[in-house]
């Protein structure tokens, strides 16, 4: 059964895409969780409905439209955070409701049934194309380069934003780039995970890593290793059990986290 999975092209596409997006999310999720901004993933995912709907309406690539909406949303969020006293969570709540509402209005203008829409909402292994695998690879390359180049600055900013500014770190620019990359990662993950479940990819591996790492250099590695295992197992199990991929991956991530936390608690007694 397992060897059969690796001979199916759509499964290979799903596993490649899953591993690539989970690695991007595993790395970026560390900064999202430590900056206490987990809601950004949920907000961007829901806002992307506007882009997906516009893409479906116009008959062009919905993912590219969703990425455009996500970038606009992340720029607006960062601008509001840096230039107003409105809380980050509140601005996410306002903007994602707005874009989601736009999405619903656009969908209501589409008079034919759009099966693609369901796959965006709940994720679908079958719908992943090679071009989406390439998007995922390009995103991972950007993420790795960005983190490698800015590592000490972005860690400093995440730990102590004021201290980082005193040290001369361009916090404003870093926040824009980080939030844009997180938004793109969310969108690229949507085909696999679905709009509703994508947040888990960013939050759960990083939460595990934060709990178990002995130092910061372990955090990113732990997050990546955790998400590679949970994503691969989730995709394979979803095929074997004929269940939705996104839901299976999230269940695996969560159950594994619960098990490991329980084991840690028992060993700590």
């Amino acid at each position, binding site marked *: 059964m397992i060897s059969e999975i690796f001979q199916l092209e759509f499964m290979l596409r799903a596993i490649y895409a899953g591993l690539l997006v989970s690695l991007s999310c595993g790395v970026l999720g560390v900064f999202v969780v430590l900056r206490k901004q987990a809601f950004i993933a949920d907000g961007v995912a829901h806002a992307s409905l506007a882009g997906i709907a516009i893409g479906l309406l116009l008959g062009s690539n919905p993912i590219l439209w969703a990425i455009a909406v996500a970038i606009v949303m992340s720029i607006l969020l960062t601008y509001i955070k840096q230039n107003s006293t409105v809380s980050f969570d509140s601005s996410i709540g306002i903007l994602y409701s707005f874009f989601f509402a736009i999405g619903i209005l656009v969908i209501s203008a589409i008079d034919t049934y759009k099966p693609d829409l369901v796959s965006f909402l709940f994720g679908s292994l079958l719908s992943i194309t090679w071009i989406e695998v390439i998007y995922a690879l390009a995103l991972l390359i950007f993420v790795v380069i960005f983190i490698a180049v800015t590592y000490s600055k972005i860690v400093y900013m995440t*730990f102590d934003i004021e201290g980082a500014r005193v040290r001369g770190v361009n916090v404003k620019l870093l926040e824009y780039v980080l939030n844009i990359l997180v938004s793109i990662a969310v969108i690229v993950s949507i085909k696999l995970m679905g709009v509703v479940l994508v947040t888990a990819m960013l939050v759960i591996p990083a939460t595990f890593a934060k709990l178990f790492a002995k*130092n*910061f250099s372990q955090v990113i590695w732990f997050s990546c290793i955790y998400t590679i295992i949970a994503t691969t197992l989730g995709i394979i199990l979803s095929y074997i059990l004929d269940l939705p991929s996104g839901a299976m991956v999230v269940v695996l991530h969560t159950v594994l986290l619960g098990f490991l936390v329980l084991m840690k608690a028992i060993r700590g007694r």
Partner: protein
Amino acid sequence: MKEQIMLKDVEFKYLNSVVFASINLKINKGDYIIITGGNGSGKSTLLKLILGLIKPSKGLVKTESRKIISANVGYVSQSNNIDKDFPITVEELIHLECNVSSKTCSLSLKIHLAKFNAEYLINKKIAELSGGELQKVLICRALVTEPEILILDEPTNNLDKIARQNLYKLLVDLNNQGKTIINVTHAHDEHGYSFKNATSYDLINGQLVEEVHND
């Protein structure tokens, strides 16, 4: 002597309420400046203006270099601004501060921690530190780059009596070396320590009032 930092007619408003009406302050190289004031008097806000973290509503904050942020400044912020759950060790945290090799940085950290008898903290995670231990680490973080200007915001918070004494001995040494020190505090802790070029200010109702000492 040319001033290192100058605040001229600085006004600062927050949400339309005036925090400072007109602050004037000149700080020369080697000065030891103490700024005291009650809760909410704006002491930390004044430091942020000096550091360039916030901009004045009116007036001028001028520094020797174009921006004090890019100058060699050590800043001890209040430890309650720090995320104590952050999964980072003391050594990793200090390496973020250093521009030199990690070996030199670790050596410098050990030397500074030793001044507080706290070398044992180097491999600990921030989450494992007590409030006083974290404060010692934040002070050492500000010192590892051997800054010309040291800016301290309530540096004795959470420190026990011995650690406070060690801190003030250290500040006297730095003052004797010609470093500029700005120390914002609730109350005077420095009695019994002799600083050169020392000036005390009290921040009252948005005004900086120079204190006159008879000793």
